[in-house]
């Protein structure tokens, strides 16, 4: 029960900071109709309801926020600043006995597509983690890089980069400009930085934007770009993960400007999610 008190204290601290920063809470259901084609389907507890509908237990807040806010977004002056909290549940295929319920708190800015919003959100995440006594290291990238590097062969480039096998890139040399191939090579070995992106026409716009963001939130961002995700999912721009002292991801997020459109209310959005359990597993001496 001491653990509960500590966890509640972390929760209160984060919620208070979010409140002071002008974010309003929304509450989301635990059960939702499942998107059968969802990327994360393997990790999500899904079952067939009595109506024959495929139902999922909450495993990712972000699409739920979009669905819930889409009617509001249409009618309201954006930007909206919202936060949410609650448990998500994941099936863990490979780790026996691992925990699978996680308490998360997340925040989003909806309706502001600017890099200022990106920086504001990253800055908030940084303060929030510092406020808990964690020294965050935030690794970021842009989710669209593979498709930018090779218009038309984006999927193949993404596979090679996400596989992180520098050797697999060789077959793609012809599909890429020399500059793009250089960027890809550095990405495939985990070494690429914003400076590398700037050298390449295809990624220069992305580089400019990432530089702006990094500039604004100096001090806890890492030079090397974050891993390329196997699937971009809903991310359409900035993508980041925050680490504590260890190698566990204590928070993550990014920009998803097309997600709201899927629910009929097109609006840019950027957000992060902190996983309280990972904070604990990462062994941080939470200052609470």
């Amino acid at each position: 029960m001491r653990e509960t008190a500590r966890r509640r204290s972390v929760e209160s601290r984060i919620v208070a900071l979010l409140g002071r920063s002008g974010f309003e809470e929304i509450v989301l259901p635990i059960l939702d109709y499942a998107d059968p084609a969802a990327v994360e389907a393997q990790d999500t507890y899904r079952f067939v309801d009595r109506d024959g509908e495929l139902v999922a237990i909450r495993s990712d807040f972000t699409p739920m926020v979009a669905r819930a806010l889409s009617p509001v977004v249409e009618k309201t002056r954006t930007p909206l600043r919202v936060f949410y909290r609650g448990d998500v549940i994941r099936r863990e295929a490979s780790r026996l006995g691992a925990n699978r319920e996680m308490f998360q708190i997340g925040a989003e800015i909806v309706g502001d597509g600017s890099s200022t919003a990106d920086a504001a959100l990253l800055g908030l995440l940084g303060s929030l983690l510092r406020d808990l006594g964690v020294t965050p290291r935030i690794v970021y990238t842009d989710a669209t890089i593979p498709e930018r590097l090779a218009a038309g062969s984006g999927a193949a480039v993404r596979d090679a980069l996400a596989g992180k096998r520098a050797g697999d890139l060789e077959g793609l040399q012809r599909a890429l400009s020399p500059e793009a191939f250089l960027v890809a090579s550095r990405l495939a070995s985990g070494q690429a930085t914003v400076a590398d992106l700037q050298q390449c026409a295809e990624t220069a716009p992305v580089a400019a934007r990432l530089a702006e963001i990094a500039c604004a939130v100096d001090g806890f961002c890492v030079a090397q770009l974050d891993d390329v995700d196997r699937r971009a999912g809903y991310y359409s721009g900035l993508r980041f993960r925050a680490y504590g002292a260890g190698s566990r991801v204590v928070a993550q997020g990014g920009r998803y400007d097309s997600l709201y459109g899927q629910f009929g209310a097109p609006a840019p959005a950027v957000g992060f999610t902190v996983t309280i359990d990972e904070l604990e597993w990462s062994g941080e001496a939470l200052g609470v």
Partner: protein
Amino acid sequence: MRIAIPKGCLQEKALRMFDAAGYPVPDELDLASRRLVFRRGAVEWILVKDCDVPVYVEHGAADAGIAGLDQLLEHDSTAYQPVDMPFGRCTLALITAAGAQGLTSASTATIATKYPRITRSWLEQRGHRAEIIPLGGSVELAAVLGLTSHVVDLVETGETIRTHGLEIEETIAAISPRLIVGKDIYRTNPGGARELIERVRQAVGSEERVCAF
């Protein structure tokens, strides 16, 4: 920086490669002791079982290591694999006992393997049906002694296969050892990571031209 070296057949060549890359490595006397951890300069070398290298790197308990693609696939590793080694190349193959029937969607075949995960996903992709029997070693023996009709295992020269009257039915993947680099070091010591990759790349590149490790 902690680097994991697979004990066994790759150990010597891996260390020689790091030596060529200019890293201080344990010498033969060191290795003759039964110790598994050696600090030399800024590097802590750890000797672990080949199948455990990806595990140490995955969880951040080692910053880098040398691991075969077979182990990386079997463990679904998410580490970076920036450099392929010019040594230790082989293939992962489906091997058949003499007289065994081919795999089909209705076959009653059995497959012995140290790679149940890779084998399963390969079977699913091909639409073949077979019972997988995970073993820990001497996998070919399973087909020789009639435990299974097939084997999925690494093949170097293929001589053992032929000696035992087995046949290679199909190549599943080309395997090579790789330098693997974990995600943590990019955050905590990005300079070290960059240097490691560059030096290994050069060592491999020059060696590749001159001689095998």
